[in-house]
């Protein structure tokens, strides 16, 4: 009989060396299966054979690499595949869990249960099986007790797990089920279609069973809404890209300390946007939320998913108002920033990006770069703080949306272009295109105003606030600022300078 099997083995070896390449391709999936087969062969060789052997398909036999299995048998244990861990992580961060050795003695004491004879609820068999389950070594965990044929060996499940899985999780923060010994909350002790014997259909599915927003789990503190329209790609791929499922030295079981660097590891080399690390460190005007805040990136962005572009926590305006609902001190010059929330509340006419935050160039980020900028007030393009500014050759951010012709045309009758006309005289041009041209902000408030066309109520001139006293009329209006007495304009019946030109 030995001779018969021995010859078979030799033939198999010859046949299957050619299949090494194929075997290596999906080693991970088939590996445990092959070990089972090999053990069966081994035990048959040593114990004189047993007819109750595993059924080995021809395909599996073809892929068997005897040399590899022999080496593994010798080593007795197989170290975990660590290639999945992010390469940026320091060595000591890698969870080097030892794969348990299954206790042979248990096997010899009790007769293994044939997979065929397993209770119906385990059938059909799933892709991944717990080794003792696959071996039919039910007795490792179960022992008949009274009426219950499948009573557990010990009262606490985790005690049974730790018998073999000797790695203890003892870092600063433990996942609650780990801490409570509820291994079976995530892992199925018998079999699963998901790697790592997870209960869910995937890693994320397993996590969201408790952490999902609609899970209804009571003792979970952190709920994650992954249904958002915009998803963080790593989060969509696997929670384990950033989190450790068992234990971690960092809060929220992150693999690294929460902060800029954690995010910048990826976000400095993405094709979708600029090199954030370089940008954040090089800009002249920095945003406090990025540099000086507690949660850094997560002050504004949701790391998982949200319904707002760029995975912002709230809509592009509300996100900003979370902090800018009070007067904040600017880091650069110590000046106080406007309390935008209050400003918007007091002034009902809002600039379009604020009114329509999800539109094109919408939200505060339409004009301000939330990651910092070389322009003051972290504006995306240049602007002026002055009352007077000659707009010639100036690349003001206003002209990103507003046509430059609005101010350069001396005469126009185009209502689309500008309605600030007396007859056909473009009063924008009159105010702006001059040696002492006034900047946009002299008359307009960039955020919100009580008046139409975002006309300011007060303009700052020489640190004195002068009211513009703007009055809107159907075809024009009037102003009585500090600059001149009450001047009226009318598009249809010119009242001032337009009379002369007409």
């Amino acid at each position: 009989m030995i001779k018969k099997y021995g010859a078979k083995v030799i033939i198999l070896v010859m046949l299957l060396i050619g299949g090494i390449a194929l075997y290596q391709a999906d080693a991970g999936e088939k590996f445990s299966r092959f070990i089972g087969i090999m053990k069966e062969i081994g035990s048959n060789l040593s114990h004189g054979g047993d007819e109750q052997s595993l059924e080995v398909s021809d395909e599996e036999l073809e892929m068997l690499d005897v040399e590899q299995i022999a080496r593994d048998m010798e080593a007795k244990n197989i170290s975990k595949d660590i290639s999945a861990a992010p390469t940026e992580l320091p060595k000591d961060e890698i969870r080097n869990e030892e794969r348990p050795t299954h206790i042979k003695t248990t096997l010899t004491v009790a007769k293994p249960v044939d997979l065929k004879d397993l209770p119906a609820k385990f059938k059909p068999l799933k892709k991944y099986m717990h080794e003792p389950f696959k071996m039919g070594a039910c007795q490792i965990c179960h022992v008949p007790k009274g009426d219950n044929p499948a009573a557990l060996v010990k009262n606490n499940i985790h005690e049974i797990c730790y018998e073999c899985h000797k790695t203890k999780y003892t870092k600063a923060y433990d996942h609650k089920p780990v801490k409570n010994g509820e291994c079976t909350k995530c892992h199925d002790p018998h079999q699963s279609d998901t790697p790592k014997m997870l209960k869910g259909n995937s890693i994320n599915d397993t996590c969201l069973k408790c952490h999902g927003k609609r899970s209804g789990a009571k003792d979970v503190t952190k709920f994650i809404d992954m249904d958002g329209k915009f998803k963080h790609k790593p989060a969509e791929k696997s929670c384990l890209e950033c989190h450790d499922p068992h234990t971690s030295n960092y809060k929220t079981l992150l693999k690294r300390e929460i902060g800029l660097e954690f995010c910048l590891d990826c976000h400095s080399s993405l094709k979708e946007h600029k090199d954030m690390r370089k940008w954040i460190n090089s800009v002249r005007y920095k945003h406090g939320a990025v540099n000086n805040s507690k949660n850094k990136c997560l002050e504004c962005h949701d790391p998982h998913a949200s319904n707002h572009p760029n995975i912002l926590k709230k809509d592009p305006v509300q996100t900003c108002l979370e902090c800018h609902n009070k007067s904040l001190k600017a880091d650069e010059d110590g000046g106080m920033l406007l309390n935008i929330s209050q400003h918007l509340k007091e002034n009902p006419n809002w600039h379009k990006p604020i009114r329509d935050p999800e539109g094109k160039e919408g939200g505060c980020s339409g004009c301000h770069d939330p990651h910092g900028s070389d322009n003051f007030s972290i504006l995306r393009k240049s602007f002026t703080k002055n009352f007077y500014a000659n707009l010639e050759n100036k690349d003001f951010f206003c002209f990103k949306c507003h046509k430059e012709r609005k101010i350069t045309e001396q005469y126009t009758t185009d209502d689309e272009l500008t309605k600030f006309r007396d007859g056909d005289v473009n009063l924008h041009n009159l105010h702006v295109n001059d040696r002492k041209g006034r900047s946009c902000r002299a008359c307009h408030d960039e955020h919100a105003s009580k008046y139409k066309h975002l006309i300011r109520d007060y303009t700052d001139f020489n640190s004195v606030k002068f009211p513009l006293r703007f009055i809107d009329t159907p075809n024009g209006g009037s102003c009585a600022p500090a600059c001149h007495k009450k001047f009226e304009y009318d598009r249809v019946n010119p009242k001032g300078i337009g009379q002369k030109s007409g």
Partner: protein
Amino acid sequence: MSRKNVIRNLFFSATATLLLDSTCIAAAGLEILYPVDKKIYHEAYASITVKLHDRNISKVVIITDSNERYPLELTKECDDVCSKTLKLRLGENGIRVWGYKGEKLAYEVKSELYFVSQIDKGFTHPPVTYREHSFHTDENEKICADCHDMSVNERGGTAFMNVEESNCYVCHKNITAGKYAHAPAVNWLCSSCHGGKSADQNKKLTGQPKYRVSDPVASACYRCHDKNKQRWDAKKYKHLPVDAGRCVKCHDPHASDTVMFVREVPNVLCLKCHGDKKLSSQMRGNSKCPGTEAETCTRCHNPHASYHYFFLDTARTHTADPDVNIR
């Protein structure tokens, strides 16, 4: 002499000292609360405030030197005090206030005021009998405080949305009547200049009255027009009023009918002092001649400062703006 007579005599003697030229018509029923007699005015407008001691007075009229009559309306709000703002002529202004009982002239009081000019020769120095008198002292303000809020209700650094809210506006509104007005004045940010501060020429008068303007005034002007100071300081020659810091000599700090709030149109203004440069009528008819209306003085001379003699700027172009192209 009865007691009544004594009191009456005292009254008469008091009014007699106040009014040098007291007439036979009794004055006791009327009193000019302000201005005080022989007051010097630096602005063209004077508010004549009259108190009626005799409640039977039915009509009050102010009569000027040139026999212009301005009736004072008696309203319910001020049944014993009424006021009228007059525009003064340069120099002496005699004012008479008549009180009528029915159709009969019952009382008369007189006052003489002097409107001093910054530029007009002959009116720059009032006769010695006239005196500077400032109304805005705590004591004087008490007279008006019953009806008027005498406090400064200016919010620091913010102009009035409606200028009529200003407490100053009520009495002083005429000073911004010109076509062109200075922004702080027309916005009634009075305290930006009228802070009670004084300078070299009126140091003794600090705080008297409360809204004193410094003399020379330039320190107040340069607070905003600081760039001009830098520009002029760099020049070799400065026009005397500029050097002396008396900007208000040519510019009316409140309002004027002329651009840049100058007190007169360029040539007229210049000739107020430089009268010797006045062109003959024949030359004035020639529009190409320098110094005519078309070719104003400022076409060639910089009214403030220059690198060159006579404030000439050799690099000047033909422009109406005196400060263009100054290097």
